């Protein structure tokens, strides 16, 4: 049985090999090492997961060594296997593996061996970081992975570093994440101050044991932690980096910015559900943020013409869904959506990559159209994934999304509002997904001639993962059938429920709604989704987009605003970026140069000046010397004897 630490270490080894030798040993070696590492670690992972599933599924903690021990502070390098990490582990490794394979085909055209090696090295490094994040037993170790994935995303977004926008996007991603991590850090400080430890097991046990004692401190702490999640999982207002992140190669977008990394925030919140549950107001905050982000991003997605941008905003919106779920206390549901989303969103992105491939790196949907026949596999898989995300039963997305809406509905307080907004968003999702579907695959080709000439289906190394992911997008949801299909239908719920540990003095809040209501809710959401799809097809496939054009024309200002993503980036530019630069310059030029050095140089100068004047007392005339002598003497005598 493989030790847990081996799972992250395998890709790390792959990274080291590729980083040091990759450039010299050429592409085939690199792909071998890179994909091999991914595959091995996947095997290793499942080598742990399957027994775990069969066994009693109790938490396993495997300490490796003491990492930091100073005074009262001590953190070990220890890994943890429990349902939650098992879940993440499973799809992170598997999807990761698939995307590695996909990358072979996708990056084939990469000019230099160096670049190719770099790419796979980064991917492996990412796997290492992500797995550390997932398997960590302590907040600090998780933070290692947390920042590690941030670094990889930074590197991979900026993979085409010689393009300024890519480099800038990478930097933006890192900095914005750092803002979130700042919160995460403070949260950890708080945790250590309160619990005297950073290990999950201890903290959660203590918290669950005596909620009354800890809950006051926890609201602030959870808020800080959630700030981290907002950064990592691109929630409003920290989502701005994710759209830009599309500057990276498409597999990266699929793996990091859709399937795995961005869900780390949700994972973290779910991981800390005990703490969050002790901070209800933060829970509400989470829900609100999630809900708002879902709608907000969904709206923006409506008016984007860049295929990947649409998917990016859709990702943000879906992440909002997940936080909504967590916010209303349905952590397992949130994680369920994480899982399904991983499948169909990865699939969508990879398809987009394949489209891009066909379109010779053009992503503007306005240049596409009628690709259905040219790239059938891509089309088919894309369609499936689109249906899945739109929430059409019995595809994966339907179950998870429906579960979220249901739990929002049953949630007390603002629950109904959340439900309504969620529903609306579902409609939007269906609409914009099929908008791009129609624009891309239906109608006639709108691109340039030689684009058309180049159009071709991608190699199997790329299409094969598509098929697998599409398949998963179909069946992925069946592990979590809603209660209406029988009490034990929801295997997922059952599997994951242990992580939502009971808190002393709090009833395990589970008030199921009547089956009737549940059926009704399902029906509604399906109806909304279907209408969204229908409308999209009507307007864009059949209507060639005349209706929306007219709509846009009717209120160009509004349309422009949406198309410009509500100009949030511009706003930030005015609010933060420019003032920052200005302050920096001012502090330097005024405080440093003018004031401090000014004072110093001035005083030095004055002394010199005094010297320059005083030296002219030395007139060279002996009589003056005699005079100064006498004056000095007289003054002295006056001072000393004069009094007498």
């Amino acid at each position, binding site marked *: 049985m493989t030790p847990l630490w081996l799972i992250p270490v395998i890709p790390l080894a792959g990274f080291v090999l590729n980083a040091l030798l990759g450039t010299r040993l050429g592409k085939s070696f690199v792909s071998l090492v890179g994909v091999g590492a991914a595959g091995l670690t996947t095997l290793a992972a499942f080598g742990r997961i399957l027994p775990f599933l069969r066994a009693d599924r109790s938490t396993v903690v495997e300490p490796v060594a003491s990492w930091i021990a100073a005074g009262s502070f001590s953190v070990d390098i220890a890994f943890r296997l429990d349902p939650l990490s098992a879940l993440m582990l499973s799809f992170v490794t598997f999807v990761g593996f698939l995307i590695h394979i996909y990358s072979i085909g996708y990056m084939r055209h990469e000019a230099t061996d160096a670049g190719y090696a770099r790419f796979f090295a980064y991917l492996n490094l990412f796997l290492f970081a992500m797995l550390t994040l997932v398997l960590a037993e302590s907040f600090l170790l998780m933070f290692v992975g947390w920042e590690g994935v941030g670094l990889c995303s930074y590197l991979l977004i900026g993979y085409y570093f010689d393009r300024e926008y890519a480099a800038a996007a990478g930097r933006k991603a890192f900095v914005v994440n750092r803002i979130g991590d700042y919160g995460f850090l403070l949260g950890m400080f708080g945790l250590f101050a309160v619990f005297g430890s950073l290990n999950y097991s201890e903290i959660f046990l203590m918290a669950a044991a005596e909620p009354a004692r800890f809950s006051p401190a926890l609201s602030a702490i959870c808020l800080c932690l959630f700030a981290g999640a907002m950064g990592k999982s691109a929630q409003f207002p920290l989502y701005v980096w994710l759209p830009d992140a599309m500057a990276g190669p498409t597999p990266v977008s699929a793996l990091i910015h859709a399937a795995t990394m961005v869900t780390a925030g949700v994972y973290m919140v779910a991981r800390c559900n005990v703490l969050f549950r002790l901070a209800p107001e933060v829970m509400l905050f989470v829900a609100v943020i999630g809900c708002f982000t879902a709608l907000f991003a969904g709206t923006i997605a409506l008016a984007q013409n860049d295929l990947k941008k649409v998917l990016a905003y859709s990702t943000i919106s879906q992440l909002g869904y997940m936080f909504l779920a967590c916010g209303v206390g349905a952590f397992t549901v949130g994680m369920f959506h994480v899982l399904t989303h991983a499948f169909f969103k990865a699939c969508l992105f990879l398809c987009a990559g394949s489209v891009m491939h066909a379109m010779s790196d053009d992503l503007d949907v306005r240049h596409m159209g009628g690709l259905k026949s040219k790239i059938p596999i891509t089309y088919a898989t894309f369609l499936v994934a689109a249906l899945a995300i739109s929430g059409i039963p019995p595809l994966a997305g339907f179950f998870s999304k429906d579960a979220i809406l249901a739990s929002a509905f049953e949630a007390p307080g603002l629950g109904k509002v959340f439900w309504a907004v969620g529903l609306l968003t579902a409609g939007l999702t269906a609409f914009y997904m099929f908008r791009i579907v129609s624009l891309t695959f239906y109608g006639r080709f709108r691109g340039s001639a030689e684009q058309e000439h180049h159009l071709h289906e991608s190699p199997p190394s790329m299409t094969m993962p598509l098929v697998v992911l599409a398949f998963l997008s179909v069946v992925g949801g069946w592990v979590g059938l809603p209660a209406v299909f029988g009490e034990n239908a929801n295997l997922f719920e059952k599997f994951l429920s242990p992580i939502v540990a009971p808190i002393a003095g709090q009833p395990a809040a589970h008030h199921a709604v009547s089956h009737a209501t549940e059926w009704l809710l399902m029906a509604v959401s399906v109806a909304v989704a279907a209408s969204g799809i229908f409308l999209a097809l009507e307007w864009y496939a059949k209507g060639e987009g005349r209706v929306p054009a007219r709509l846009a024309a009717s209120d160009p200002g509004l349309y422009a605003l949406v198309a410009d993503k509500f100009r949030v980036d511009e706003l930030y530019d005015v609010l933060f970026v420019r003032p920052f630069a200005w302050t920096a310059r001012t502090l330097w030029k005024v405080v440093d140069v003018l004031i401090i050095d000014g004072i110093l140089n001035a005083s030095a100068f004055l002394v010199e000046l005094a010297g320059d004047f005083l030296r002219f007392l*030395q007139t060279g*005339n002996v009589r003056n010397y005699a005079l100064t002598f006498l004056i000095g003497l007289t003054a002295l005598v006056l001072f000393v004897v004069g009094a007498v």
Partner: protein
Amino acid sequence: MIGAIPLSDVLLASAALFAIGIAGALLRRNAIQIFLSIEVMMNAANLALLGYGAALGSREGQIIVFFVIAIAAAEAAVGLAIFVALFRHTETIDVNKINLLKW
């Protein structure tokens, strides 16, 4: 007190001479006159010495004067020699004009 001269008179005279000497040293520009004034200052000192000597009935006063005169003579020799040496360069001993070294 030996002799009929009150010390106060002597000191008064000596002080006056000393002061005038200083004045001369400061107000003259001619090196030789400056030096003469300095000689006067030394004589003022001698006068006071003798006055004190008489007042104290001590001969040391006279001894000191004796030495001072010797020293004065020596000074005169050296001083005048320096004037001469300098004069060969500058053709003057007006100290206002002698300020090659300054600042």
